[in-house]
C-alpha cells in the first residue's frame, strides 16, 4: 500500500514487518525517528513479541544485539556517525562472530567539528569490519533493503548495515509502497540459526584463536562477503518475484549502455545526478550513472564489466580519506585496474554541503574539457582554504581547525561574505 511517509517511518514499518525479536538503540540524529517509530509500534502492539531495550550507549546497543542474536533472536539496531564509531569495537566483533544483525546507518559526518548533516564518513570508516554494507538510493529502496537485509544476513550468517542518507532520506516525506505482512512472511522465513547459546547443546562462542588458525578464520570471513556478491542479486530477484519491484542488487545503471562518461556514486545523490544526466544528454553528451547499492562486498568484476564502454569515469563521493583522497574512487580504480579509463575523483557534500545541479553541471563540463584536477572538491571555498593555509605557513598554530579559521579569517559561508 502506498503511503506518503517519512523515510524513517517507512523503515520502521519495514522493520516491524520483518518480525524482529529484539530491538536496542541509543538516540543519535538523524537515526532517532526510526527507533522512535519502532518503540511506538512495540507499545501499541503493532510489533508483537519483541523486546525494545533502551541502552546507555551505542557500544551497549550493539553489544546487546550481539547477545540476543547469539541466543537466536532476530535483532535490529540503528545508529549514525559518532554512534557508529562509539560502537566500532563491537561492529568488528559482531561480524567476527557471524551474527546476522541488521543495523540502519543514517549516514552523517564525523566530528570534530561536530556536524549532524549527511555524508558517508561514518559507514566508510567501518567498511572493512566484515559487515555487508548496502546503500539506499530512495526511501522505497531503504524500506525494501531492510526486508532483504534480514534474509541476506541470515542466509550468510553475516551482519548487514543498511545505509541511508541522513536527513535527505531519513527525514524526507515520499510516496513509499509499504508491503503487507503476508508478502513479507512469504519472502522472509523465520530465523533459524545453525548455532545458538542453548543449555541443551552447550557451545563455546568467541574463543581465543591464535596464529595457527586466525588466517583461515579471516579468509573465510572474506569469502563469506564474496559469496554475498552472488547472494545479493539472488535475493534481489526473489524480492522482485514477491513484491514486483526492482530494489537492491549490487548496483543500478542508468543510461550507461552507450555512455562515454559514467558517474559512479552511492545513495540519494543518484537522483540528482540522473536528472542532470537527462538534461545533459539533450545536448548530445553521452553520459550515464552507476549507483552502487552494495559497497561491501564491492562488486569489482561487475563494475569492471559495466564500465567497459566508458572512456571517462567520475567517482562522485561523499567521503574523504584524509591524507589520501577519495575512498570510493580508490575502489573504482581497483576495479578498472589496467585500463586506460580516465578516472576523476570528485568529493562532494561533506557535512551536508548541498550538491547542486548547477555545480555538478559545471563539473561535468570541465570533465568533458579534460580540465579537472584530481581529486576535485566540489564547491570548496578555495579563498578561505588558501588564506588559512597561508596563515598557518607564517606561524606555528596548534589548535582546532574550525576555530583557527574563525580567529584568523572570520566566519566562512555565504552569510559571511
Amino acid at each position, binding site marked *: 500500500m502506498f503511503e506518503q511517509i517519512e523515510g524513517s517511518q517507512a523503515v520502521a514499518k519495514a522493520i516491524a514487518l520483518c518480525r524482529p525479536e529484539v530491538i536496542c538503540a541509543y538516540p543519535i540524529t538523524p537515526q532517532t525517528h526510526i527507533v522512535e517509530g519502532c518503540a511506538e509500534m512495540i507499545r501499541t502492539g503493532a510489533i508483537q513479541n519483541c523486546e525494545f531495550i533502551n541502552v546507555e550507549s551505542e557500544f551497549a546497543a550493539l*553489544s546487546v544485539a550481539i547477545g*540476543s542474536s547469539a541466543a537466536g533472536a532476530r535483532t535490529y539496531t540503528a545508529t549514525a556517525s559518532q554512534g557508529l564509531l562509539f560502537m566500532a569495537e*563491537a561492529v568488528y566483533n559482531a561480524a567476527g562472530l557471524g551474527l546476522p544483525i541488521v543495523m540502519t546507518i543514517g549516514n552523517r559526518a564525523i566530528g570534530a567539528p561536530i556536524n549532524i548533516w549527511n555524508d558517508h564518513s561514518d559507514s566508510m570508516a567501518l567498511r572493512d569490519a566484515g559487515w555487508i554494507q548496502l546503500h539506499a538510493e530512495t526511501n522505497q529502496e531503504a524500506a525494501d533493503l531492510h526486508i532483504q537485509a534480514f534474509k541476506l544476513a541470515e542466509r550468510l550468517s553475516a551482519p548487514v548495515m543498511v545505509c541511508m542518507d541522513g536527513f535527505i532520506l531519513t527525514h524526507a516525506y515520499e510516496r513509499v509502497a509499504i508491503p503487507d505482512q503476508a508478502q513479507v512472511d512469504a519472502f522472509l522465513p523465520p530465523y533459524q540459526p545453525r548455532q545458538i547459546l542453548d*543449555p541443551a547443546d552447550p557451545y563455546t562462542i568467541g*574463543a*581465543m584463536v591464535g596464529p595457527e588458525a586466525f588466517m583461515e578464520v579471516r579468509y573465510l570471513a572474506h569469502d563469506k562477503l564474496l559469496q554475498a556478491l552472488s547472494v545479493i542479486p539472488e535475493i534481489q530477484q526473489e524480492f522482485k518475484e514477491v513484491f514486483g519491484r526492482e530494489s537492491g542488487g549490487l548496483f543500478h545503471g542508468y543510461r550507461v549502455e552507450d555512455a562515454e562518461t559514467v558517474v559512479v556514486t552511492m545513495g540519494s545523490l543518484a537522483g540528482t545526478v540522473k536528472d542532470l544526466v537527462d538534461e545533459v544528454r539533450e545536448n548530445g553528451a553521452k553520459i550515464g550513472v552507476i549507483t552502487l547499492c552494495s559497497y561491501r562486498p564491492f562488486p569489482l568484476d561487475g563494475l569492471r564489466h559495466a564500465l567497459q564502454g566508458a572512456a571517462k569515469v567520475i567517482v562522485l563521493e561523499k567521503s574523504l580519506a584524509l591524507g589520501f583522497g577519495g575512498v570510493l574512487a580508490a575502489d573504482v580504480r581497483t576495479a578498472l585496474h589496467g585500463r586506460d579509463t580516465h578516472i576523476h575523483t570528485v568529493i562532494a557534500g561533506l557535512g551536508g554541503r548541498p550538491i547542486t545541479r548547477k555545480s555538478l553541471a559545471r563539473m561535468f563540463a570541465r570533465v568533458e574539457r579534460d580540465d579537472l584536477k584530481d581529486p576535485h572538491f566540489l564547491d570548496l571555498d578555495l579563498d578561505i582554504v588558501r588564506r588559512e593555509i597561508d596563515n598557518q605557513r607564517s606561524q606555528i598554530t596548534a589548535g582546532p581547525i574550525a576555530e583557527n579559521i574563525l580567529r584568523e579569517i572570520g566566519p566562512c559561508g555565504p552569510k559571511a561574505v
Partner: protein
Amino acid sequence: MSDMTAEQKVKFYQKGTFTAGNRLVDQARRSVQASMERSNAITSGHRACQGCGEALGARYALDAAMRATEGQLIAVNATGCLEVFTTPYPETSWQVPWIHSLFGNAAAVASGVAAAMRVKGREQVRVVAQGGDGGTTDIGFGCLSGMFERNDDVLYICYDNEAYMNTGVQRSSATPPTARTATTPAVGPEPGNVFGTGKNLPLIAMAHNIPYVATASVANLHDLERKVEKAVAIRGARYIHIFVPCPLGWGSASHDTIRIARLASECGLFPLFEAEHGEVTGSIPIRRKVPVEEYLRPQKRFAHLFKDGGGERIARLQRMADANIKRFDLLREAEEAPL
C-alpha cells in the same frame, strides 16, 4: 538462615581454618563442590596459573548456579584471564553455553541474551555475566551500570584480583592503595598504588537499588555458594563481587590462595556482606580478627610496606580495614555459625 539455626545447634570449627568442614555437616548441606554431581562448569585442562583464585571462584560460582538452575544456564564472559585461560581454540573448558564478545561489554551482551530468552519464552534459562575487576569496575562499568539501571535479568559476577592480570598486572580502579603493580611501581615517595583512589563497586551497585548485591570470597565456599544460589533465585539485576587472589600478580605462594583470601576478610579489608534493594541485609562477622600486616606480609606486592617508612602506610590500611569493620559491624558476637 533461620532454618539453618534451628538445625545447626552445634558450633563446630575446624582447627586452623575456622570454617566448618564439609564432612561435619549433613549431606544435604554440603557444598556443591563436594558433590559428585557438581557440573564442573569449568572442567580441568584450562591454562590458569597454579593456585589461581579466579579459576576456583568461577568454578565455585558457576557450579552453584548450575545446580540452582538445574543446568539451565548461559554464561557471558568479558575478556581477561578467565576467558583466555579457558578457551585456547580449539579447546574449551566450558561445559555450559558460553560466549565471549569483548572486554567492556559482558553486561550488555548478557542483557541481550536475557532479552532473547524472554522473547523466546525460555525464561527458565538464567544468564550469568562474568568479568575481572578491570572488565567490571573500569572498562565495562558503563554497560554494567546500564544493565543494573534497567534491572535486566542478569547475574553479574566480578572476579576481583585487584588488577589487570591478563595484560601483566597493571593497576585497575580495584587495586588497593600501596599495592605494587606494573603501572604503580613500588618506587618514589608514594610506592605502589596511591591512597584516596579507587571505587567500591559493591556499594555502587547497591546505589542502583538492584534486588541483590553481595561480596564473597573463595575462602568461604559455603557462603559463596549460598549467595550464588540466592542470587539465582531472584529476578532482575544482581551483582556478586568475589575476592580471588592471584598468585602471579600478588607475588604470593600458589598454595596460599585460600589462606590469603581468608586473611583479607579476617583483617577487615574485604568485608563479606549482602544487600537487597540497596540495604545491607547481612554480613559475615569476623571470628578471629587479624591485623592487616598478617594479610599483607605474604604478598610481594606489599613487600615495600615492610621496609623503612612502611609503618604509616600500613597504619592507613589498618584504618581502612577498621572502617569496614565498623560499617558492617563485623566484630559483633557471631550469633550463629554461618556455614
